[in-house]
């Protein structure tokens, strides 16, 4: 996989590829009755996810809904209390190492080694995923250029800005060419220019068949990038399907009278939020 800027798609909005949801092929991500409890508290309850290969799947939910817990379970960072998980047809409980080889992860905490330089870290990441020394070095150099992290080669990761660390974490997650990519809030703290670069790279990856599972609080990003969406609220999956169908109300059976809703409207309708909560503040006038 090469990451040259010249080869990137134009920034103009391009028609989003309508990926078919083929149930009889092996799901990229499949969970059945996925549940996680912390003592008395149930963070995730009976979640059944189906994500087909090549989908750009946005996983949404209010704060504390169970998004990060789900993504942690799917990437092996957290054990499930009940239920099963399969990635690319491999059961996580019996094939964890093989699954890890196939996936890339940008977790919530970014998982960086602060006292390495960016190039040392990427090189290290490549070799941990089984790339040979030459390939790891070559890909690390390309990714550093692509992510615009090459300008200060001696700078330690701990001295990077938050946005730079996000980009580095993303680079480390894709260096081995994963088939499924899990991204927990990948655009948080990333500037508009870098965000554009990352989005273009992710779109190009899905066009090549990579499945992306992304959580984000920014609905505009999900709306622009994702083909499919799942919404989790209070630990339960309350909606799942192609973005267009969800917005038009086909899946919920409440087809919108005035054309398709925005994702924000659909999201608020689904999780029961209200835009006018501010009117309840007595002192605001």
């Amino acid at each position, binding site marked *: 996989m090469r990451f040259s800027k010249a080869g990137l798609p134009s920034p103009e909005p391009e028609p989003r590829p309508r990926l078919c949801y083929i149930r009889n092929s092996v799901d990229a991500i499949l969970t059945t009755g996925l549940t996680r409890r912390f003592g008395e508290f149930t963070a995730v309850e009976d979640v059944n996810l189906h994500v087909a290969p090549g989908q750009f799947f946005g996983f949404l939910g209010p704060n504390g809904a169970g998004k990060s817990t789900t993504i942690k379970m799917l990437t092996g960072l957290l054990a499930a209390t009940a239920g099963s998980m399969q990635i690319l047809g491999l059961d996580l409980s019996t094939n964890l190492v093989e699954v890890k080889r196939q996936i890339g992860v940008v977790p919530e905490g970014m998982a*960086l080694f602060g006292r390495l330089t960016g190039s040392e870290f990427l090189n290290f990441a490549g070799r941990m995923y089984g790339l040979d020394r030459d390939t790891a070095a070559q890909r690390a150099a390309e990714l550093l250029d692509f992510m615009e992290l090459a300008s200060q080669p*001696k700078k330690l990761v701990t001295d990077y800005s938050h946005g730079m660390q996000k980009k580095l974490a993303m680079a480390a997650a894709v260096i081995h060419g994963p088939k499924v990519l899990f991204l927990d809030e990948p655009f948080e703290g990333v500037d508009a220019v870098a965000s554009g670069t990352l989005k273009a790279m992710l779109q190009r990856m899905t066009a090549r068949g990579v499945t992306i599972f992304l959580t984000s609080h920014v609905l505009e990003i999900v709306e622009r990038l994702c083909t499919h969406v799942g919404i989790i609220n209070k630990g339960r999956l309350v909606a799942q399907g192609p973005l267009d169908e969800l917005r038009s109300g086909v899946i919920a059976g409440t087809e919108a009278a005035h054309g398709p809703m925005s994702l924000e409207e659909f999201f608020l309708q689904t999780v029961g939020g209200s835009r006018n909560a501010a009117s309840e503040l007595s002192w605001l006038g």
Partner: protein
Amino acid sequence: MNPGSAAQLRAITFLRARLFINSLRSVRHKFNLVSRIIGAVLVVAASLGGGFLVAMTCWGFTKAGRVEFVSLVCWSIFLFWQLFPIMASAFNQNLDASDLLRFPLNYRTYFVVRLLYGALDIPTALGLSWSAGVFLGVLAGSVDLGFWALLSIGIFVAFNILLARAVYVWIERWLLRRRSREIMGILFFLAVIGFQLVGPLLSRYGRAASRTASHLPPFLLGVQQWFPPGLVGLTLAQANHHWYALAGSSLAVMAVFTVAAFGLLHLRLRAQYRGENPSEGERRHEQTSPASVNRGWRIPAVAAVITAVYEKEIRYFSRSGPLLFTLIMPLVVVLVLWGGQKGFLTRQAGYALPVGAAYCLLLLTNIVYNSFGADAGGFQFFLTSPVPFRQIAAAKNLAQLTVLGLDLSILWIGICLVYEPPKFPAIALTFAWYLFAIPLNLALGNLLSIYTPKRIDYATFGRQRPSESTILISLLVQMGSVALGAAAIAVARMRSNIWIATVSFLFLALPTVTAYFVLLWRLDRIVMRRREVLAAELCRA
């Protein structure tokens, strides 16, 4: 101060109290409270005991008519008051002023907060009580000097408080940069090592040193009188001779110093208040050419992933000032042994290698028993990578052995220079003990790294301490293995055959080497069971 400022000060006091109370929710902080209580008892004892001693000394000087000697006591108080906070600040990442400045504080409130925020610390408490001791001692010696003592000590205290805060905020500005903190830490550690060598060097060269000290230039004694600690004694001496105009002028000079300290503090705090943030002012070294990344290391016959983790560990170690410092410590041991002329070990030079080698292993305790601590958030990377933890732990152990090997080489050179090259029986004894003790330490180290992990920072001095339980267990293991070694050597010496100890260690090595590999093999299962606790402890910000 307007009512709004007073409310803000109350809110900040409340915040500090709440932070402290909330911290007590965790067991670790409850243990810390116990150590704080013990510390407080010690501080009170040092305040009262030190204050009493100071009072007695000043009373003696005043009674003997040598009230100017009070300056000696004041210099001691001054040096402690100013130097202790500087040393302590080398350990800490200090309060970011912007934490307070985002609130609508006026400058006066901000100044008061910064003056008080930390002014009620150990050096201030001790400095205040010892200064009170000076006053009471002089007063008890001569009631006539009470007024002048009150004024001069009062100004001396104000000067110390303002100067300590001024020096602190100026150093704080410097320490906001990571590299500066590291340099400061290294200087501090050098000072600590220097103190360790004072005893042995004095025992060797004590007489010659005292001859030099007696020729101290007399002008230094004159110069000291022009600084606040000296001016206290000078004021009292002048007042004692009824030269009140001169005593008044001495007080005025002290006041000038105090105003200057106030000015220094004001200058810095004003800049902070106006929004200066030097931590963001790092110079940038931009590179415009395409990135070139060196290929990773390759170690023959070692798996690529183990080599990758090994390389990462060595890079971490090489960027850790405190760890690099451990490389000097074997030489310090050799010098300490050599300096103590009448010690058992200097008469038995053959034991310098085993003793030094045991010390080298001891130096690695922090990194062996908390080997994931410095990875911090990077630990999640290990969890998501397809590499078994037994390989990661093996690579870490290999890197730790490399540091030990380096330590041992330096020790060897030191011994060769100071004594003579170690004899073969001593070498065999050392390596047989290592064969027993290293696998034992590594096995338990790997286990405790998973069961009692603690996030640490290799780069900052004072941030390498593992958890309290790890310290306790590792100490017991170290003491046990050293005691076993000492017992075996004692038996061998009684039988006049050192090889008995060597062979005993080789036998003892069998179970420890087996235990190491068995544990390594089971490490993945243990990590998977404990991954949530590990991630929570190591990866939290």
